[in-house]
């Protein structure tokens, strides 16, 4: 599991996750996710390259998202595969963490 991040226009931090967000993958990115969330005001989490997610992986999304939201920021999820989105929906996360498949829409949601 790898994590890369980049700063976009408008103060948006884009985090790109690549690999399996299983127990091992979650452990590999948790620290960097939390560090990134510690300063980001607008966070876009790119899930296009995430092939698997379990409850520990969900935790890797929820904890940083909660940190951003506590500071009045915004978080969106971008581009999950169908199976990963099935997990997000089954967890009811989509009700509070918007999922977008169009990058323009995702960026607009953070504006």
């Amino acid at each position, binding site marked *: 599991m790898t994590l890369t991040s980049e700063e976009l226009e408008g103060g948006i931090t884009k985090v790109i996750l690549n690999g*399996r967000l*299983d*127990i*091992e993958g979650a*452990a590999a990115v948790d620290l960097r996710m939390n560090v990134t969330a510690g300063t980001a005001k607008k966070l876009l989490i790119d899930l296009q390259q995430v092939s*698997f997610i*379990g*409850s*520990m992986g*969900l*935790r890797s999304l*929820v*904890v940083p*998202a*909660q940190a951003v*939201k*506590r500071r009045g920021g915004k*978080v969106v999820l971008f581009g999950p595969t169908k*199976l990963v989105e099935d*997990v997000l929906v*089954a*967890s*009811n*996360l989509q*009700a*509070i*963490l918007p999922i977008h498949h169009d990058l323009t829409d995702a960026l607009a949601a953070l504006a």
Partner: protein
Amino acid sequence: MHWPRSLSPALSDTLSPTMTQLLPHHVLRRLSLDSSLADLARVSPWVGELAGEFGIPSETRFAIELCLEEVLSNVVRHGYAGESGHDLIVQFVPGDGDAVFVVEDRAPAFEPRPPAETVPDDLSTIRPGGQGLRLLFRFANSVAYERLADGNRVTLRFELKINESVTGSRIDQGLS
């Protein structure tokens, strides 16, 4: 009753009538794990081998890996309190149109039950680690629990959904 050679006597002695109906005619695989989260990394490659051998579609494989991760990590973190060195066994039972996975441990009793259906209204109210059982009951077609004399047995059944990448003949060959 003739049991597959790879089925442990301890397991065969304690199988319920339901489980005996689920038992395969001739194929069964077993994965022995240590009770550590690190060792659970062996599960996905094992399921991948089974998927290739038995023509398990990718969508079903995803559900199997998800549910096994939830059950096994629950046992490691809660049943064994994160202590390594304890037994954790997964057995695979292919059937006609479905795949059954049996997880056995020697931990204190714990029966997984479906959580109440709630929709969080705010991100702050969601429990970061509270989704495992919800996912388990959503992605497995059935979840059965049995308390053993000295442990727990959770039986997960998955219907084999045929997708474009898997031919019907391959499934017939693998599961007949």
